[in-house]
């Protein structure tokens, strides 16, 4: 199957390309950029005039809910939603049921993803057995079956000695740790940023310090052990500054932020809007600005969806009793593109959605170099559209941007040279 993608604005941060030119795909791979190779006969021509052609997006954190919570979403339903959002590679955290702490679960997820054949699903293994925070998992075995990293998801590792051993062992096995920095004591029972809104609404607060204190501790352990650590879904400005300093000092640390954290703040939980109940909580405008600065300066390299689809009932309760999270695959790209309003260049935004997360995960994705697998996203950066429950492919309809106009719409998604999503008129 030969595909000729015609007239689009090709943006590939991995090669520093941002120009209007054609792209040629054959046998699932990129074969030429610009001029048509000799003897190339297109079976399909995609007119990308006025659209951006970029590598398929790489989403570092997306809960697919399977195994264990298939009433909220399945690997099939959520990977279909992913490609509708232009995402061709995604990474699922280990807080499945049962926990992804054995090779069998990793293989199960991989099989289901292959059967769905929509997007590449990468698996994050559990850092501790059953995510209990006490015994380290069989890291080497998990790595051998293809886990791209290890994480304890939102389950705390309270014992600092366990954390130290986990880092030392991971360093030995050369595995990256993906950690959520949240002090379990300071955040205990909380559901909202501690500040004006939590006070007004009488919600138990999670102080910014819960993240900052944990980041400080983890950075000391990184310095001690040399382990490679990625900080997942930062929420405070101060944590960004601390990580910036650590990067300056040469520590092997990186970070990501969920797209909604760049656009919403704790004000949005007003009127007990459970769709804005997320973990870590939406914080102050100052924190949101700090996160934006972090992205612009490259301290935070990655924008992810932190996709968490829920069944309807999970959000139908008093605020604190609802389950946190946003069904975010289909709003990832338009929310990230809003960074362009702050003078961030399109190529830098795309880097944070493609090559940078691919490099941190160590996966072959995020690039359209000749010879690379043709995972491609084609979107119109100027098109306005309305996110609605009906239009969402994810099983979870929990997204606070439903009913709002978003800018930037995916028209085609290709996985290994095959169209897996095409916008219907």
């Amino acid at each position: 199957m030969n595909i000729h993608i015609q007239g689009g604005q090709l943006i590939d941060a991995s090669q520093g390309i941002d120009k209007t030119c054609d792209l040629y795909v054959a046998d699932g791979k990129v074969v030429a950029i610009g001029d048509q190779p000799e003897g190339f006969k297109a079976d399909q021509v995609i007119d990308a005039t006025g659209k951006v052609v970029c590598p398929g997006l790489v989403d570092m954190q997306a809960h697919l809910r399977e195994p264990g919570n298939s009433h909220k979403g399945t690997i099939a339903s959520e990977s279909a939603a992913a490609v509708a959002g232009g995402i061709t590679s995604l990474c699922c955290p280990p807080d499945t049921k049962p926990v992804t702490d054995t090779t069998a679960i990793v293989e199960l997820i991989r099989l289901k993803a292959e059967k769905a054949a929509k997007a590449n699903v990468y698996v994050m293994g559990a850092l501790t057995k059953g995510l209990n925070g006490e015994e380290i998992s069989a890291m080497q075995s998990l790595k051998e079956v293809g886990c791209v990293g290890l994480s304890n998801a939102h389950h705390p590792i309270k014992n600092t000695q366990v954390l130290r051993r986990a880092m030392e062992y991971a360093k030995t096995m050369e595995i990256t740790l993906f950690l959520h920095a949240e002090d379990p004591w300071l955040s205990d029972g909380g559901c909202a940023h501690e500040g004006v809104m939590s006070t007004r609404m009488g919600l138990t607060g999670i102080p910014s310090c819960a993240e900052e204190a944990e980041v400080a501790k983890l950075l000391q352990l990184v310095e001690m052990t040399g382990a490679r650590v990625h900080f997942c879904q930062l929420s405070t400005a101060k944590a960004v500054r601390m990580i910036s300093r650590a990067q300056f000092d040469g520590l092997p640390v990186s970070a990501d932020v969920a797209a909604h954290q760049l656009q919403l703040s704790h004000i949005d939980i007003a009127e007990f809007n459970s769709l804005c109940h997320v973990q870590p909580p939406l914080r102050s405008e100052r924190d949101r600005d700090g996160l934006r600065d972090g992205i612009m300066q490259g301290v935070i390299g990655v924008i992810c969806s932190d996709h968490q689809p829920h069944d309807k009932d999970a959000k139908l309760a008093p605020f604190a009793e609802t389950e946190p999270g946003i069904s975010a695959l289909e709003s990832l790209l338009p929310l990230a593109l809003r960074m362009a309003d702050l003078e961030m260049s399109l190529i830098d935004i795309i880097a944070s959605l493609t090559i940078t997360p691919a490099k941190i995960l160590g996966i072959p994705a995020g690039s359209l170099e000749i010879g690379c697998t043709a995972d491609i996203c084609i979107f119109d950066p100027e098109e306005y559209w309305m996110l609605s429950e009906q239009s969402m492919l994810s099983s979870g309809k929990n997204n606070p941007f439903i009913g709002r106009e978003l800018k930037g719409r995916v028209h085609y998604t290709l996985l290994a040279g095959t169209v897996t999503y095409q916008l219907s008129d």
Partner: protein
Amino acid sequence: MSRRNIQLDEQNKLRHFITVEGLKRQMLVDILDTAENFLGLGARKTKKVPLLRGKTVANLFFEPSTRTRSTFELAAQRLSADILSMDIKTSATSKGESLLDMLQNLEAMGVDMFVVRHGSSGAARFIAEHVAPHVSVINAGDGCHSHPTQGMLDMFTIRKEKGEFAPLTVAIVGDILHSRVARSQIHALTTLGVTEVRVVAPRTLIPADVATLGVHVHHEMESGIKNADVIIMLRLQKERMQGGFLPSEAEYFKRYGLSEARLKLAKPDVTVMHPGPINRGVEIASNVADGEHSVILQQVTNGIAIRMAVMSMTLGRPEIEMGEPK
């Protein structure tokens, strides 16, 4: 464009009573004036008026309460409503029935009003968002968020004692962090336009950024109640010792308890209030609780009048004149 206040109907009349926050001063004054009309009723031989005859009120108490629950029951009965009181801890939700399923079942039984006490902030609002259009919801306390009838009965008591709000300095002392009562009082006092609202507590019991609610924060009891016209003492929950908020009741009383000696720092005609139930010797000395400045028992009496006012305003037809009972 601002969204409409869920508590008001199309004519800007009170439909639900979820929180004091966001209501206009005139609405609060209307509630107080209506309560004034009902106050005399308790002393009459026949205490009932037919305002809510034929209406059914369901008391849904997800948290234990004696005072609030019984005053709501009395208020409903005096308005001639049928009342159904449910203690939910022993009821359906423990069998896994969801809150919304339970509400729909009660609506199917023809309930016109829910009076809700719930441990989770926002619960009353959540219920109000999901009830049928003819049903009213009264918040009888949700988590640490709001307890608006308590807040208003305290305003009623203050108005009875002091006449007007403008010149007053009011000190609220105690566990502000966990207090829905304090939040309702603060919103009511600032809306009614008092001179100064103070909150007094150690830092462990003061919520973050509380000054944004328009209050002055004091950590010393002495400065906090100095020249106050009204002192509202909050109940100290025993659980606060376990949470590490305070070392001991004795130490709390030493620093923040309202003793006779301390009371002298306030205005000579100071009014002492407490939403009850009181812990004698923990937040307030017995002789102060029972002393000449205390209006703690009047607060309870006033509570019935306020609850009748709010119930009749949301559900009844205020245009019907209160006739003399036959």
